[in-house]
Structures are given as C-alpha cells and as structure tokens.
C-alpha cells in the first residue's frame, strides 16, 4: 500500500515538474527580460563553479590516464592513450561527471535559496508587489544553468585532457604538441557536437529541478533542507536518463 502511494506521488511529481517546465517556456520571452538578474545568475552559476569544475576535470584526466596506462602498455598500445582518453572524456566521462558535480553545487544551491525565500514569504512578497517572481527567480536561474553548463563542461574537458597530458609527459615523455595533435586527430564532429548538445539539456535539468524543488518548498526550515537534498538526488537521476536518451539518439544519427 505504502509503495503504491510512493509510486503515485512520484508520478504526480513528474507531472508537476513537466507543468513547471511548460511554464518556463511560456514565461521565457515575456517582458521584462530580467537581463541584469540573468547575468548575475550566470556569474553565480558559471564563475563560482570554475574551481570545482577545474579540480574535478584535472583529477578525471589524471586518474583515467594513470589507471589505463598499465593495460595499454601490456599490449604495447601506449600511443593510443591520447585518442582513447580524449574520446572517452569528451564523449561521456567529462560531461556526465562535471554535470553531476555541478548538480551537487547548483541544484542544491538553487533549491536551498528559493526554498528559504519561500518559507520566509519573500516569494509571496514579490508576488503581492505586482512583480512576477517566476520570471525573476525561476526563468533566470534555469536559463543561466542551461547556458553555463556547456561552457563549464568544455572547460572541464580541456583541463581533464591537460591533466592526462601531464601524466603522459611524465611517464611517456610525450610532448605537448604531439599529445594534442593525437587528441584532435582522434576527435570527430560526431564526438564533440552531440556531447555538447546534451550538456544544454543537463544544464536545463539541473536548473529546472533545483528551481522546482525550491519554489514549492514547504514545512519550514526542514523543508529547505529537503528541497536542497531532493534537488540533487532528482537532478542527478534525471542527468542519467537524459544521458541514456542522448547516447541512444546519437547512436542513430552518428553511428558511434
């Protein structure tokens, strides 16, 4: 019985999230455009995630190279290392891990911020002053997350490749030029474009879930914690679903 109620409430939540997303597109082009707030959110989401993304990317590059090298050496295929690392990072590992890291920072941040605004009646105060809080708070945050995540992922990928190069340089004495020549020779249009497109969806999902959980937060301060927590869990789950769909679609159009 309890499971049935849980399943029902899960589908109700999916329905409400879909409606929330529909409202986002409806309000997106309504005036005022709130450009100042959009830029502020881009700064908050983009600039303030740089360190986290940089460190994550660098470690991904180091670890993948360190762990894969011995196996490739066994087959005498070390020269394949730049190609292998670049394709795996650009296509899959970079976008997914960086998006997950950002989901932890961005979705929880948005969820907690909007949640506390809801429980302290700040959102109601905006509404009664004749301003549209959805446009000001939600549209700007979702849009900022959608625009910033691809940039963060590209940057994270680049740093990951640089991390990989450092290990290659130490262990295999490969020059910077040779390493990156091999990287760019290995990468194709079908590796970069679909991987970049899916990061827009990742950003949208992170922003949407964070805003949804925060905007409809209740139960006081406990609710704020729950909103932040469930924003991370729900957005992370959504990222994997989007990733699966993206890989499936890419397979059809680009024949991986």
């Amino acid at each position: 019985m309890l499971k049935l109620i849980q399943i029902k409430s899960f589908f109700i939540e999916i329905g409400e999230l879909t409606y929330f997303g529909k409202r986002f597109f409806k309000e997106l082009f309504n005036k005022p455009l709130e450009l100042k707030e959009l830029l502020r959110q881009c700064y908050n989401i983009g600039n303030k995630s740089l360190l986290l993304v940089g460190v994550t990317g660098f470690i991904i590059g180091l670890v993948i190279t360190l762990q894969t090298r011995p196996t490739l050496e066994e087959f005498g295929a070390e020269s394949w290392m730049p190609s292998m690392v670049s394709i795996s990072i650009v296509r899959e590992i970079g976008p997914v891990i960086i998006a997950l890291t950002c989901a932890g920072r961005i979705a929880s941040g948005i969820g907690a911020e909007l949640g506390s605004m809801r429980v302290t009646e700040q959102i109601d105060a905006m509404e009664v002053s004749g301003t549209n809080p959805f446009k000001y708070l939600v549209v700007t945050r979702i849009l900022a997350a959608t625009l910033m995540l691809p940039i963060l992922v590209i940057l994270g990928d680049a740093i990951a490749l640089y991390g990989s190069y450092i290990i290659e340089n130490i262990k295999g004495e490969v020059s910077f030029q040779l390493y990156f020549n091999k990287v760019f020779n290995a990468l194709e249009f079908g590796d970069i474009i679909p991987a970049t497109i899916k990061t827009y969806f990742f950003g949208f999902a992170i922003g949407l879930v964070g805003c949804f959980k925060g905007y409809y937060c209740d139960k006081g301060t406990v609710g704020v914690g729950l909103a932040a927590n469930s924003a991370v869990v729900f957005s992370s789950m959504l990222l994997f679903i989007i990733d699966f769909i993206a890989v499936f679609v890419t397979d059809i159009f680009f024949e991986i």
Partner: protein
Amino acid sequence: MNLNQNILEKTEKVASKKLMLEIKDLKKSFGNNYVLNGFNLELYEGENLVIMGKSGSGKSVMIKCLVGLMEPDSGSIKVMGKDITILNRMDLDELRTEIGFLFQGSALYDSMTVKENLEFPLRRHKHKFGHITDTTQLVIEALQSVGLADTIDLMPAELSGGMQRRVALARTLILKPRIILYDEPTSGLDPITAKEIIELMRHIQGQYKTSSLIITHDVDCARVVSERMILLIDGVNYAEGTFAELKASKDEKIKAFFK
C-alpha cells in the same frame, strides 16, 4: 434624541465613505478542514479595521486570499470594486500596486540591500509616478517616513527585528498604496518595539490616508489602532464592533480575547 442622532451621524459617515474592500461569504478548506466558512468583511476608505482570532482561526488564510496568494473555494473578494477572483494576471498585478502587505516576518529580500528591497516593487510599476528615471528620492522618502533613512545601504541581516519590520513597512509604502494589510505587525517583537510599530502605523495612516486591515492577536495593538474590530472564530465573523463594545461583551468566547 442624542443616541438617535449619533446613530444617524455614524450611518451617514459610513455611507459617505468609499468601500475599499468587500468580502462576501468567503469559504476556504484544506481537505476536510474548513478554515473559512462564510466570512464577510467590509473596509471603508480611511478606516482601520482589526481582525482578531486565535492561531489557526484562518486570519492569515483570509488575508492571503485577499491579495490572490490563495484561491478561495467560493465567495467574492472585491478590492476597490474589482473582484480579484476573476481578474487576469496583469490586471491583478496592477491592482496589487494599490495594496501594501506587511508580512509577519517582514519578508525582506535578504540578498538585496535596503535600497534594492525598496526599489524592487518600482521595477514594474514606475509608471505610477510618471516618467522618473532615478528612484532614489522615492526610496529615501519612504525610509524617512519610517525613520530609517540612514539604513539605505545596509543588508537586511544587519538590521534588528524592529528595524526590519519598519523597512518592510517602507517597502509597502513605496508604491503609495491606498490599502495596507498588516499580518501580525507586532508579533515576535519586544513590547517597546511593538509599541513603536503601533505608533508608526498610526502615523502612516495619518500621513498617507490609507485604509488599513490589521490582523493581530495583540490586544494592545487592537486597542490603539482599531476603529472597528471583527472577531474571527470557527471561520466566521463571530462578533463585530468597536474595541470598547467587544471588551464589554458578556460572551465567554469574546471575553477570552481580552483576558
């Protein structure tokens, strides 16, 4: 003779005033819990009306229905003759500029300075003041009316509870509303600060000539600011009258409020 004259004068005085708010047969329930069960209210121009009720009696639900933050199950809510339950979003936003709302917890935007807090409502509704480009003067005027002009660049977290309440009041005044709704204006404040807020409410009513609807369970506040009172019990108007009339009542439920 004198009594008849008084009643006649009172009736004429009320009839000559414009009806600012009118609630008829308002009903609102949450599941099986009927919070408002046919509540009625009339607020006239320049009047101070106090609604008193116990916690959970539906006072805050009523005031939220009044500004369109909650949708009532049935009944009509007219603000200056316009039924807000049937207004579209744009018209409702426009009408909301005529209503100031002081929230129980002040509800200042904590990521903005005091100046930005006060400027926020002006973003959409600057047209009310003609073609002004600099809103600073309006902000300073509103802050001066609550005696806090020197806090303009501070963040809400840097203000005390009483100061936050006064800045919130300045924010409600910035659009020069004709009606102000106060949701528990003195709750959570020490007696001295509460008294200051009550005085400020009276001062503002005199300065801005607003009609005020005050929701409170603070008897002192009700005594000082009310011209008329409604006791909200079990979701309906249980009793109505002046503070003195209600205080003199023999009804046990009414007496409980004044003990």
